[in-house]
């Protein structure tokens, strides 16, 4: 661009673009899905490409709540509290079929999908989902974040 040239854009898009590459996740890991989460988070799949390489272990510093693994009724209030502690803007990813629907658990102990407790943005099915599915879900989440209208 030479002197005096310019381009226009929407502030929403600029913020969305910045946010989608600065995903600070809070991994809420309760079960075997955690292994696939760790596989995805390690160097082989390099999710730093998506700006999601730095998990935060405090909900107050995180943007995206990764709910990884079966949630029991006893754990439900804890998950709700962690979600409440996160600051806006925040997104939730349901990782694995147990968090999506309860999965193959249909019993006295298991919550039938975490969307009965908190709102969910992206569902990643699989038992457990392969890292490719996780990255696909992560990219869909990025699209959602980028397209989101901002509140000022």
């Amino acid at each position: 661009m030479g002197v005096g040239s310019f381009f226009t854009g929407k502030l929403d898009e600029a913020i969305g673009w910045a946010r989608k590459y600065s995903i600070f996740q809070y991994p809420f890991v309760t079960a075997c899905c955690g292994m696939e989460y760790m596989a995805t988070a390690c160097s082989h799949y390099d999710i730093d490409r998506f700006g999601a390489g730095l998990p935060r272990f405090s909900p107050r510093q995180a943007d995206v709540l990764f709910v990884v693994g079966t949630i029991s009724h006893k754990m439900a209030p804890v998950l709700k509290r962690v979600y409440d502690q996160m600051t806006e803007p925040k997104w939730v990813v349901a990782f694995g079929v147990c968090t999506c629907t309860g999965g193959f658990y249909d019993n006295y102990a298991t919550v039938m999908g975490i969307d009965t407790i908190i709102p969910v943005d992206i569902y990643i099915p699989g038992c457990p989902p392969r890292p490719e599915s996780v990255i696909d879900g992560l990219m869909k989440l990025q699209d959602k974040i980028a397209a989101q209208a901002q509140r000022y």
Partner: protein
Amino acid sequence: MAILAELQRRFGDAIVEIHDHRADHTAVVARDALLAVLAHCRDDVALAFDVLMDLTAVDYLKFPGREDGPRFDVVYHLYSITHNHRLRLKVRVDEDDASVPSVVALWPIANWLEREVWDMFGVRFEGHPDLRRLLMYEEFVGHPLRKDYPISRRQPLIGPAS
């Protein structure tokens, strides 16, 4: 089997039934004599069952041949480190009077085991210091390992403790 014979000799009718199928030594004990038998098993030098390996229960609702009998068995698995031998004791309890004396005073490990049996089967343990649910939460209704607990019953979701 010397242990079972010894128990029968000492406690007589309180030992309701015994069997030692393939060295699986089992005695069914009358509830009134349960504490005395367990205390003897722990303290007798020749028995010395110093470990309560497990304490659990079985729901025999609609079990073939036991439709009319007592509904629950509470099961005690004992192990002796000194003698390296084992014994299983059972006590039968009715649904209407589902309670057995607590053995926390004999083996402290029984504290959580009895809480689990109370939680899952609804069998009370008289004299337990703190008989609360162990695995499920306080608001949970019913006892999920009872055979008549509906497998797909939905419990109300509980909110964060305030």
